[in-house]
């Protein structure tokens, strides 16, 4: 049988429900106002910096844990492969195989670090090496967190590269961490030109490709622009945020826009945006012009 609540209990329950709805509506209004105020923000307020300051070391610990897990699985798969090939000698060589795996891993790391060092020495810019410690989980915004911040000299709008090429710029910096807005983020764009021709009149804008998240798109190129499949595209340095000459990607196809007035190119990014581990922040004298075409939008 259904239990009937006394009238005063029903009234209390209704009151409480009303209070909950009022709370929800108020919170919603405040948060919507907040979004409106910060939709195109650059930088971070002190409470944000404080929270990042607390969480960054924890993220660093988990990142190291991730690397260990990754290395472990790499070692396991390598070991399995060798097991198939060397079944007869498996037991005798178990230790040697483990050692070999370790050496291969160290060699890979050595190569990676060497290429980073070479880049650092060869680069005309001063670079700050940093590790990626987190990535925005939403996929709506392509932002990563690195373990270097204002204490290390990282400032907003500095370009960020890997040994492969340009990946983005600093969105905001806390004392011990910083947010990097990747080129694949819809709010980021970079002024670029084709490295082969270097025609000053053939400067385009590289931004995310709305058709395919794995590619970038170079648009606003003159119809007669000298651009071919396989061409390397570099930053032009004209936008005021990114220094000139940073490799962005390679042309995989070109086409005219709908009106036939300009052409655009689809680019294969030089860097792998899905596997970012070590990056460099480029210290340059470039300012932060508010009206720059490379500015967030």
């Amino acid at each position: 049988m259904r239990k009937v609540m006394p009238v005063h209990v029903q009234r209390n329950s209704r009151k409480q429900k009303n209070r909950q709805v009022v709370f929800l509506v108020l919170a919603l209004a405040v948060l919507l106002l907040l979004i409106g105020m910060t939709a195109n923000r650059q930088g971070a307020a002190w409470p944000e910096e404080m929270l990042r300051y607390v969480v960054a070391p924890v993220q660093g610990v988990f990142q190291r844990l991730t690397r260990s897990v990754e290395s472990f699985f790499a070692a396991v798969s390598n070991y399995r492969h060798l097991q198939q090939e060397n079944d007869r000698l498996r037991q005798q060589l178990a230790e040697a195989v483990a050692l070999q795996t370790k050496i291969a891993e160290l060699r890979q790391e050595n190569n990676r670090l060497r290429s980073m060092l070479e880049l650092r020495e060869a680069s005309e810019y001063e670079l700050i090496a940093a590790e990626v410690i987190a990535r925005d989980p939403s996929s709506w915004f392509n932002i990563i967190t690195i373990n270097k911040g204002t204490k290390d000299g990282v400032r907003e709008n500095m370009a960020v590269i890997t040994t492969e090429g340009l990946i983005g710029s600093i969105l905001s910096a806390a004392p011990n961490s910083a947010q990097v807005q990747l080129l694949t983020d819809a709010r980021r764009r970079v002024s670029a030109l084709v490295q082969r021709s270097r025609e000053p009149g053939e400067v385009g804008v590289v931004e995310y490709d709305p058709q395919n998240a794995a590619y970038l798109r170079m648009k606003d190129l003159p119809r007669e622009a000298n651009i071919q499949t396989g061409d390397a595209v570099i930053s032009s340095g004209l936008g005021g945020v990114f220094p000139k000459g940073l490799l962005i990607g390679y042309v995989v196809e070109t086409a005219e826009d709908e009106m036939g007035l300009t052409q655009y190119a689809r680019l294969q990014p030089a860097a792998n945006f899905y596997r970012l581990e070590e990056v460099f922040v480029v210290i340059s004298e470039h300012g932060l012009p508010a009206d720059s075409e490379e500015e967030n939008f």
Partner: protein
Amino acid sequence: MAPLLIFVIFVISLALQGSVLALAGPAGVQPDILLVVTVALALLADLRRGAIVGMCAGLCQDILFGAPLGFFAVSKMLVGAAAGLLAADINKELTWSAMVLMPLFTLFSDFLCLILLKLFQIAATLPFLTYLQQVTLPRIAMHFLIMGIIYPHLFRIQKRSLLFAESEVEE
């Protein structure tokens, strides 16, 4: 004690999110563990507490990952409120009930994000349909499985009334 415990759960989730779970998905798609935690906690609480938990989780995400402040706070607050609304009607001892609801909340969350992007004219990295295909669908599968792992633990913690006071949940 309870807010501190929930904050610790958030910090661990956020740290896991950016590191270990980055390995989980194909082509850069990774689960939103904070969303799973929000839904799990809200299903163990009520509308108000679900909304508060969601709002705090979303704010942490906004602050740590550079989204417009309040963006994920709104979406996660509404998801938390919706999950909290259902809390009284589900059998909390059954992990399956939470797992079955998780895909719906994943869709709801992405739908809310789309509305906010349109509302504030924020450029989206992918068109919504492409996002649904490339991100939401794999994520639904991941969230379903992760809920199966997370929920029983949170349920056991809540059974000892460590997350929310029992009297408040009953209301």
